[in-house]
């Protein structure tokens, strides 16, 4: 079919973030053992409890097995062949952005994340993470005036140790799963956010993760705490250079919302996906979980997953507080030989808790795209409600889509609703739009956008436009 081939052409998209920054880095030797963990901890001048946290996680990790239940096929990862700490060489203590290596600033400039005072984004505070370290955080003073803490997790360990000790690992325990345990043992940097009681964060907060080095993994850790009646919107973006080897990314994100607090966490994931033959690309094994600890608290995840060779990711909500709300809005686009197994877990523990799941999977090329989600109603979840909608769209005739919903209920007085659908962009639909003068590429992109609309509507403004553009790019090649 003529159009089938055309579809194949337009889903080929150049990855424009594939450059490598040539910068002197400090790397430790390959491999993973107790000494390496002690070395990372000492480089970060960590307190005893944190070193113990790491060592404990490592011990458990050694006894754990890599999970194989996901619909993912990949060569075994050699954990001894990875560098667990890599940082650009910089001055010991940086007091202002002016002292950051211009090459790093230039890198983030190129990625569309300008950091310098003159150029920085006006409405978003950014924490920029390069390989294993955070290199800059903007708007810190302005945020501090509102009592908001936004800094790298390494800094938080030094300056807000009480909060770290109290909350780190409280949502995702060190031994939660194989990749979380690995992260807990070797995590290097990431972002820390604290919103005090009653404060609505005056601007969106954002972390931008950049993997630069080909042989080191990135193991970042993010912790967000929203005190009573506070609210924050947090955005996360990520890119990596094109290497023909696979790079491991195993992150942990923990969110805590107290009474009446709300956290909105949005991700646009655009790690390098590998080439058309499936060579290279990031292995993305991420544990993201939010705890709605307080009554009427709310945690909302929205994600646009377009990158990575492998995605294994289930942003989840533990709904403990009465009337707390969990949301998950996801668009996952896979192309070529990409594989994604992604979804969520909504664990209803408290009464009258509510959750909404809207998942849109788009598979093109020979890719594999699975939704996997758990909805659980606990014994005390009286009057709890869940609504799930999982839609898949297939482009071409070689892609695959799966939906794996897991539903368990221990409370009769609760409601669970699940809808699922699969569709294909048909030649007839394309011809219909084309016969109205709409260019082929725009027609594909229109249909994909239409398919994702429910999710895009949930993204913060700046992100929605970016997400639309990103999908268009992924699917349109030259247009846009």
């Amino acid at each position, binding site marked *: 079919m003529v159009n089938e081939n055309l579809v194949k052409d337009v889903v080929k998209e150049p990855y424009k973030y594939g450059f490598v920054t040539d910068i002197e880095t400090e790397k430790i030797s390959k491999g993973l053992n107790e000494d390496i963990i002690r070395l990372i901890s000492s480089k970060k001048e960590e307190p005893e409890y944190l070193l113990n946290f790491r060592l404990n996680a490592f011990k458990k990790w050694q006894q754990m097995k890599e999970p194989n239940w996901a619909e993912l096929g990949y060569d075994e990862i050699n954990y001894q062949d990875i560098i667990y700490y890599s940082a650009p060489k910089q001055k010991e203590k940086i007091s202002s952005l002016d002292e950051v290596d211009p090459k790093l600033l230039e890198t983030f400039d190129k990625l569309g994340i300008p950091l310098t005072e003159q150029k920085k984004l006006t409405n978003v505070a950014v924490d920029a993470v390069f390989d294993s370290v955070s290199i800059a955080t903007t708007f810190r003073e302005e945020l501090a005036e509102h009592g908001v803490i936004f800094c790298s997790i390494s800094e938080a360990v030094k300056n807000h140790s009480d909060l770290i000790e109290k909350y780190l690992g409280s949502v995702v325990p060190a031994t939660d799963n194989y990749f979380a345990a690995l992260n807990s043992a070797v995590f290097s940097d990431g972002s820390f956010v604290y919103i005090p009681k009653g404060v609505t964060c005056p601007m969106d907060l954002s972390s931008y993760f950049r993997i630069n080095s080909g042989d080191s993994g990135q193991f970042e850790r993010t912790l967000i705490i929203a005190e009573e009646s506070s609210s924050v919107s947090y955005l996360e973006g990520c890119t990596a250079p094109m290497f023909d080897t696979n790079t491991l990314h195993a992150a942990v994100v923990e969110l805590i919302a107290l009474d009446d607090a709300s956290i909105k966490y949005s991700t646009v994931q655009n790690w390098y996906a590998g080439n058309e033959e499936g060579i290279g690309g990031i292995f993305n094994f991420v544990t993201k979980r939010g705890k709605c600890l307080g009554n009427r608290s709310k945690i909302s995840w929205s994600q646009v997953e377009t990158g990575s060779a492998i995605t294994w990711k289930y942003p989840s909500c533990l709904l403990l507080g009465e009337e707390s709300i969990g949301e998950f809005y996801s668009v996952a686009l896979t192309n070529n030989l990409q594989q994604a197994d992604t979804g969520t877990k909504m664990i209803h523990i408290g009464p009258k808790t509510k959750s909404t799941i809207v998942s849109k999977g788009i598979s093109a090329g020979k890719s594999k795209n699975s939704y996997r989600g758990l909805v659980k109603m606990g014994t005390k979840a009286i009057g709890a409600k869940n609504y799930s909608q999982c839609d898949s769209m297939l482009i071409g005739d070689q892609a695959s889509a799966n939906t794996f919903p897991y539903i368990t209920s221990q409370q009769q007085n609760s409601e669970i609703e699940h809808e699922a659908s699969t*569709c294909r962009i048909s030649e007839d639909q394309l011809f219909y739009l084309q016969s109205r003068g709409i260019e082929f590429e725009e027609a594909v992109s229109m249909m994909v956008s239409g398919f994702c609309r429910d999710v895009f509507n949930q993204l913060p403004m700046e992100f929605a436009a970016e997400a639309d553009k990103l999908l268009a790019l992924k699917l349109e090649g030259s247009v846009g």
Partner: protein
Amino acid sequence: MQTKMKESEPILEVNNLFASTDDLPILKGVSINVYPGEIHAIMGRNGCGKSTLSKIIAGHPSYNITKGEINFLGKNVNSLEPEERAQSGIFLGFQYPIEIPGVSNLEFLRVSTNARRKFLKQEELDTFDFEDLVKEKLELVKMDSAFLSRSVNQGFSGGEKKRNEILQMALLDPAIAILDETDSGLDIDALRIVASGIKKISNNKMGIILITHYQRLLNEIKPDYVHVMSDGQIIKTGGSDLALELEKNGYEWTDNFVKEN
């Protein structure tokens, strides 16, 4: 065949067109010329190739032209993409309009209209100006503006889908409109609405080809020519009386018809 001399150039010239899909011949030498202001009807049994002819003129990718040519406004369009044909003024009204979930009808109509306007070197319309235009055109087919906020054709009744097609014809202001069984599935009231819409949109510069099985649409819109198709060929051409004859005698005689010349 049309023989009388015309003062103007034809809008559409189909010359001895042969076409196939998956190596199966469907059109076996079709010729038809449409001049400005003319209304042609193509009639015939299911499977005679009349819908295929309309799709091929619009550029459907499933069919290959093996011989012959389609000239539109004096230019061979055999190898043009469907969108290029549409932009330059070929309109196909679908027998079964396609549903496009999630894409708002309004946005679809606007992008489509602007693609045509861009070709005509007219100013593209923003959302506000377009809404004014579309509301005016909605009147022609007696559609409610609530249709605009719904997804393209999704959940539309058969009649609503057909009216939406005619709305598109009104917005795109084509040089030639090929309406493939626009009358099928319509009750008598809806048929009148659709027919009156077509009549209001048509003008002395536009050519129209009505593809239909039945006389009833032709009672509303009187054709200048009626062509009868069978087995991928036009076997007979006449005036509007020919349609009445078909209504009376049926299509059976066309089955084993040996082409007159």
